[in-house]
């Protein structure tokens, strides 16, 4: 019983079996009472009709002799001779004509079909009989032997029992099959879950086709893809921390240790402490960037999305960087005034644009022209930052969005190799992606975003670029 109670499939199968059994019983009952009832009513109607005909064939009421003659004729005509029952009793209770030797007693109600045991042609039989009273106290019995009906009755009952039995067997087979099917599929999902639990995150639920289980499996697989992605991100961050944060930490530590050597002046000590604080601040900034990427990639911030004018964002960021562009002798321009509306997080989008402008100024070099714009077409919104600097070698393009990845020639410049990773994570969070392409000369960095309407329609605005 414990096993039965614990298994949902068994419960389902059992419930299904019970429902089918109950419906079979109901159908059988309906069929039984339907057929037998109809037969019984037919018999009653027949004997009533025949007795009426016998009673009414004479305007002044039938005389014995006429009635007896008619009965004898009916008995002799060979029609229904297996079942027909007639008896005419004189007012004194003596049989005048007929084919039964015992008959219902005088207390039997008149003109209403009753079921009685009689002896017909020397054989006992169960019969349906109607008794009519004749003028002068004589009685007429008209009836029908119920043996054919009894046969049909038995036949129907047998057929119903056989049918019900067969149905129940089918139900049992069906429920067992159903149970097996459900259990097999659940077992496959369970097995996948156990394998993943054991550490193999690449396992997926096998495809069942397009039914409930198939869709459940697809849903689970999509969830697993997402988890694997996030796990990869976490692994990547831990690797990055292990490799790329040790170096600056080692530098800070070395500076401090050096400062503590004997014979250092107060100024040197304070200089070292200031530098150490700056070094630590840089590290904190890197940590914050990594956390920000993780936060964006986890898709948690889509809750705070609101309508943002990308053109406003572009102008704000250009105004933030104009002084720096002047200093670096880079031309920084923007075009377009019309609002370009997106659904997103203003701060994150501004951050992404700032990162791209920062890169363009830094790598474009003196004399470069940087053009920033927000635009839209019917399907997408674009945030574009284009420079005419040296660009990125095509084979490096896929790698520059990786965390901490830096081009060899840019290692001498300040930066932590996280800028483009953040831009990509922000674009992805907004349901878009980051495109990098060489414009020969220069680089075109473009954030492609869904229109505000599409972004609002989409259920999950996260898409892997």
């Amino acid at each position, binding site marked *: 019983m414990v096993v039965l109670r614990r298994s949902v499939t068994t419960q389902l199968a059992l419930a299904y079996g019970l429902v089918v059994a109950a419906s079979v019983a109901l159908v059988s009952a309906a069929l039984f009472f339907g057929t037998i009832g109809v037969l019984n009513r037919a018999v009653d109607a027949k004997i009533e009709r025949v007795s009426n005909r016998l009673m009414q064939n004479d305007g002044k009421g039938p005389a014995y002799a006429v009635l007896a003659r008619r009965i004898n004729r009916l008995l002799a005509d060979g029609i229904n001779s297996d079942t027909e029952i007639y008896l005419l009793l004189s007012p004194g209770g003596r049989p005048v004509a007929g084919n039964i030797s015992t008959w219902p007693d005088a207390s039997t109600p008149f003109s209403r079909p009753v079921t009685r045991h009689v002896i017909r042609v020397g054989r006992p039989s169960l019969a349906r009989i109607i008794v009519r009273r004749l003028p002068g106290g004589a009685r007429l019995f008209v009836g029908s032997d119920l043996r054919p009906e009894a046969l049909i009755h038995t036949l129907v009952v047998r057929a119903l029992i056989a049918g019900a039995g067969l149905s129940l067997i089918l139900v049992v087979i069906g429920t067992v099959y159903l149970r097996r099917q459900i259990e097999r599929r659940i077992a496959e999902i369970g097995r996948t879950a156990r394998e993943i639990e054991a550490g193999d995150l690449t396992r997926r639920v096998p495809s069942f086709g397009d039914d409930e289980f198939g869709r459940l499996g697809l849903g689970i697989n999509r969830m697993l893809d997402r988890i694997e992605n996030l796990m990869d991100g976490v692994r990547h961050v831990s690797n990055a921390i292990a490799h790329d944060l040790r170096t600056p930490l080692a530098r800070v530590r070395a500076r401090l240790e050096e400062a503590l050597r004997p014979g250092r002046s107060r100024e040197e000590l304070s200089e070292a402490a200031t530098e150490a604080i700056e070094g630590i601040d840089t590290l904190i900034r890197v940590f914050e960037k990594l956390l920000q990427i993780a936060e964006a990639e986890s898709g948690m*911030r889509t809750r705070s999305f609101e309508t943002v004018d990308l053109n406003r964002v572009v102008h704000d960021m250009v105004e933030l960087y104009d002084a720096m562009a002047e200093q670096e002798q880079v031309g920084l321009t923007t075009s377009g005034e019309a609002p370009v509306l997106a659904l997103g997080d203003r701060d*994150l989008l501004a951050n992404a644009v700032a990162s791209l402008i920062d890169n363009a100024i830094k790598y474009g070099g003196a004399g470069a022209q940087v053009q920033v714009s927000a635009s839209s077409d019917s399907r997408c919104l674009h945030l574009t930052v284009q420079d005419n600097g040296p660009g990125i070698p095509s084979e490096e393009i896929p790698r520059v969005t990786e965390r901490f990845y830096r081009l060899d020639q840019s290692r001498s410049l300040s930066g932590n190799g996280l800028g483009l990773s953040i831009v990509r994570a922000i674009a992805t969070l907004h349901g878009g992606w980051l495109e990098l392409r060489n414009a020969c000369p220069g680089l075109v960095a473009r954030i492609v975003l869904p229109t505000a309407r599409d972004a609002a329609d989409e259920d999950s605005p996260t898409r892997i670029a």
Partner: protein
Amino acid sequence: MRCLVIEDDADTSRYVCNGLKEAGHAATPCGNGLDGLHYAVNENWDAIILDRMLPGQVDGLSIVGKLRDLGKRTPVLIISALTSVDERVRGLRAGGDDYISKPFAFSELLARLEALRRRACPGQESMRLQVADLSLDKRTFQVVRASQSINLQPREFRLLEYLMRHEGQVVTRTMLLEAVWDCHFDPQTNVIDVQISRLRNKIDKGFSPALIHTVRGSGYVLAARESAPLAADAP
């Protein structure tokens, strides 16, 4: 300024209290939420520095909430290791006046605290600002130094206005980013330094004395004095 410092980490608390004392303020440390709530509600403070996560049943946000429920307008600066923007928004919604994430530079904390105090006793926000021979008129968008009109771009105007409104106070790069450019992120490079240097070229170059001073490790101060206030330096 009388400050209440509600912070459970003894080192951070000491660091903040010592820094405040060196800057000439009175600081009362408090190590748990329950006492913190008690002090915050029953005494009058010029500012409260509040850690978000505290031991005991009372956390930082519920202290702010309670304080505001009682109608107390004491400026509250929240410090927290929860750095995400969502957390920051939550802190400000609960009634905090400013939010600073750990780890922080003391100068940043002090600068924000002084800005808060200034905000807490608002006078009529004047349309005309004057520092030494530099004047700024918000109505006409005119900046004049030593009778010479200076041409500023709109953002430069806002930057100068912010600096002048906080005359004599250290303002950090983060504060400038937030107030002038509405940026709540760290743009990696020294954009603010470059902006300040361009502004300096316009309002200080060729004039005496220089009004915009750099406070090393902290930020900037606009003042008629030769040097920045020492109190703002990191201890």
